[in-house]
């Protein structure tokens, strides 16, 4: 064995076997894969190849891949298009919410319509974070996204609350009001409608699993629930004030 020859071998990233490069790529975030891909022609070819992007795409959207086999595009382009589509979908929901709100309040029917749009587009948790956990957007879209994570993605509790804190929306507050008819008494008099009001921060909403609140948001106006209104706002007014107003 010639010592000099051995010592002169320099290990560079591009000299590594492809299976090791793939291993490293599989541990990188999309952003980092793209950064590496912009470094040189070699990494451009490697990082933007289908062997790298197929797992990225199918890990992020497991339900999606079977429908995409037909397209003669690279997996990176498919990934980009899917991301763009979700971004547009989130933006359209945001616009819809803005248009449907009156005096900062939204009726639950419109809330549920927006919820369905998100659900139909099959947002994943990463997509939700990217497009709907932003502190500068409508707080009701934040609420919708948190609710979607709990009800559809099954992400709740401390995990979710931690993510909300990281995204800086945990403290944002919403107000949900709902009115119930209690029916008639035994003497045939109509009883007074019962009204409920909940001010809650998104962080608490994620942790508390408040069944009555989740119930009215999920079902909307059905059975005894006459009306549900969701409003945004940063300062909770005292409860008594709310009751006097009505």
């Amino acid at each position, binding site marked *: *064995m010639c010592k000099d020859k051995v*010592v002169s071998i320099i290990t560079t990233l591009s000299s590594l076997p492809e*299976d*090791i490069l793939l291993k490293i790529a599989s541990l*990188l*975030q999309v952003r980092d894969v*793209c*950064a590496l891909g912009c470094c*040189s022609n070699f990494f451009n070819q490697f990082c933007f190849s289908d062997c790298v992007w197929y797992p990225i795409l199918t890990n992020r959207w497991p339900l999606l891949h079977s429908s995409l086999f037909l397209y003669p595009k690279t997996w990176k382009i498919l990934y980009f298009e899917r991301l763009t589509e979700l971004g547009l979908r989130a933006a359209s929901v945001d616009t819809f919410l803005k248009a449907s709100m009156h005096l900062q309040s939204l009726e639950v029917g419109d809330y549920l319509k927006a919820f369905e749009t998100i659900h139909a587009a099959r947002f994943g948790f990463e997509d939700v974070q990217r497009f709907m956990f932003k502190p500068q957007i409508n707080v009701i879209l934040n609420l919708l996204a948190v609710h979607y994570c709990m009800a559809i993605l099954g992400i709740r509790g401390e995990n979710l609350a931690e993510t909300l804190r990281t995204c800086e929306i945990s403290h944002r507050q919403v107000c949900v009001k709902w009115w119930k008819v209690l029916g008639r008494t035994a003497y045939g008099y109509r009883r007074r409608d019962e009204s409920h009001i909940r001010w809650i921060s998104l962080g608490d909403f994620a942790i508390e699993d408040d069944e009555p609140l989740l119930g009215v948001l999920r079902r909307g106006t059905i059975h005894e629930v006459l009306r549900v209104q969701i409003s945004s706002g940063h300062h909770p007014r005292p409860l008594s004030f709310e009751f006097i107003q009505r």
Partner: protein
Amino acid sequence: MAAEKSSIKIITLIAADGSVFEVEPNIVKEMKTVQSYIDELDQNTVSIPLPNVFGNDLAMIIEYCKKHASEEETKEAKEEFDFEFVKRMKSDDKLRLLQAASYLNMESFLQFMAKAIAAEIENQSVEFVRDYFQIESDFTPEEEAELRKENEWAFK
């Protein structure tokens, strides 16, 4: 077969530069390349040449294996060790160890090193990645500008 294996007391590993390491059998268990070699032999002492691994790297790998094979060490102590282990390395050290891990077929060490490398470039700029891995750009300025534009979405 079992009797043969337990009869081996000391394993000698010879690195590419000729340096010699004597290790106990439990240390090399993780090195599947070495282990399969031992399994086929019927001797008390084994000496194995590893022409693709340098002495310095082999010393580090053995240090890592000793720490992780030890039953006395707590999980926290091992994590602390892992942290310090990669902290003192430069990028080419990591790449060499990664290559050695692949040659020795050490699954968990390979995963550990690959993770350490991935962590280094997490959330970094193209310039940083180039500098870190000493990659020479072979793009024309126009090609580079176009590529950056094409991938802008990923950096938002």
